[in-house]
């Protein structure tokens, strides 16, 4: 690492915050719980601490974990036409593409609707549980959180759930369709996934991972 170019500012770098979207530099001013700090130029929300957000996110992640495993294994839809029946789980749906290059599609679908959401929930628990308990961060917690954020756009459980509704309407003319318990579990999952993303203040998580304990209570 060469240090030939000096930053053109006398402010310590820890007291600066840069908007990730437009690169604008600000002096860090911590908002209180419930307030939001916004970029003046592109209006991106930079910091938005919520009360007990850490606990809430953990609860949601646990629920997501249970629901995905449940929805993956138990049948969530069944079909019945003229005495012939068929019931499928989410895993069956993911593996519906078979034969030749279609295998790739099966793997991609399984990755997007089961593995990515599952991995994100696990990583979230791994990162946030020690923070909320006021312990030292878990080993490699920062890399884990970075991976979890990188997975965010690829975790598509909620899109799959809306896809279920569309598929139901398309099949309804053809046969009688029944809902298994996992169908409702998936419905709850959608709401939880969306809630999880709205609680999460990334800046606060990074901050508490970097300065454990000093940052008073974890305001993730």
């Amino acid at each position: 690492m060469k240090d030939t170019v000096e930053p053109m500012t006398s402010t310590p770098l820890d007291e600066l915050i840069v908007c990730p979207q437009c690169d604008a530099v600000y002096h860090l001013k911590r908002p209180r719980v419930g307030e939001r700090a916004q970029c003046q130029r592109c209006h991106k929300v930079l910091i938005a601490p919520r009360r007990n957000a850490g606990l809430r996110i953990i609860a949601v992640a646990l629920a997501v974990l249970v629901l995905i495993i449940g929805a993956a294994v138990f049948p969530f839809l069944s079909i019945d036409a003229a005495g012939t029946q068929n019931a499928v789980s989410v895993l069956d749906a993911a593996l519906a593409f078979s034969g030749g290059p279609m295998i790739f599609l099966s793997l991609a679908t399984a990755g997007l609707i089961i593995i990515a959401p599952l991995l994100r929930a696990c990583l979230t628990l791994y990162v946030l549980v020690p923070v909320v308990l006021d312990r030292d961060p878990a080993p490699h917690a920062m890399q884990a959180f970075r991976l979890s954020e990188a997975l965010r756009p690829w975790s598509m459980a909620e899109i799959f759930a809306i896809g279920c509704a569309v598929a139901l309407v398309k099949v309804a003319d053809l046969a009688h369709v029944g809902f298994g318990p996992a169908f409702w579990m998936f419905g709850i999952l959608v709401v939880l996934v969306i809630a999880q993303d709205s609680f999460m203040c990334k800046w606060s998580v990074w901050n508490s991972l970097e300065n454990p304990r000093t940052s008073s209570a974890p305001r993730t």
Partner: protein
Amino acid sequence: MVCMELTGKPQNVVSAKDLNLVACTRCAKVWPVSASTCGRCGHKLVSRDSQSLSRVWALWVIGFMCYIPANIFPMLKTRTLFQEENSTIIGGAVELAHYGNFGIAAIIIFASVFIPLGKFWAVAYLAISIKAGSRISMNRRQMMYEVVEYIGRWSMIDIFVVAIMSALVQLKTLASINPGPASIFFALSVIFTMLSAQAFDSRLIWDAQVKDGGPGRDE
């Protein structure tokens, strides 16, 4: 709502690049521009990715090339007692509308035609505007980018519908639905356009402001 205090004078936004600083694109930590990896999360640091636009275009072209066969080949193969039927994406939606399911037909057309085409247009427009300038304000273009990033993944819904129907409708001799070759092209197209949008460095939109000598022009 707390507004952040600017480092420069009000009305004069300073970018990290101007201060010889670089912010981590994953965790937003600020480093001197000479740092090569983020000391906090380990992500690679780039002040402005000079390769960003060529990667955007390369992925864009692959995505677009996959989108064409996705519309030509059949998406679904439906076999019932008396007939076997192959339907394309648009053909399937037209058929749904024909049977009175206008809502679902609209969702399918919106997710599989309007979103992908709109996305191709928006990403191309943003990439061109970096080099050629634009009459659309920076705030608008930033919003365009956010919409593209948010909504692009929803195109995948059609693939999931095909997956669910193919898994569910397997009624021995009575009826069966199987995925057609278009599904693989469509999925690839969605994945590559998502990667293309992610490769775009939105900070480039705002650099022009500094070059043009100050804000105001856009607000």
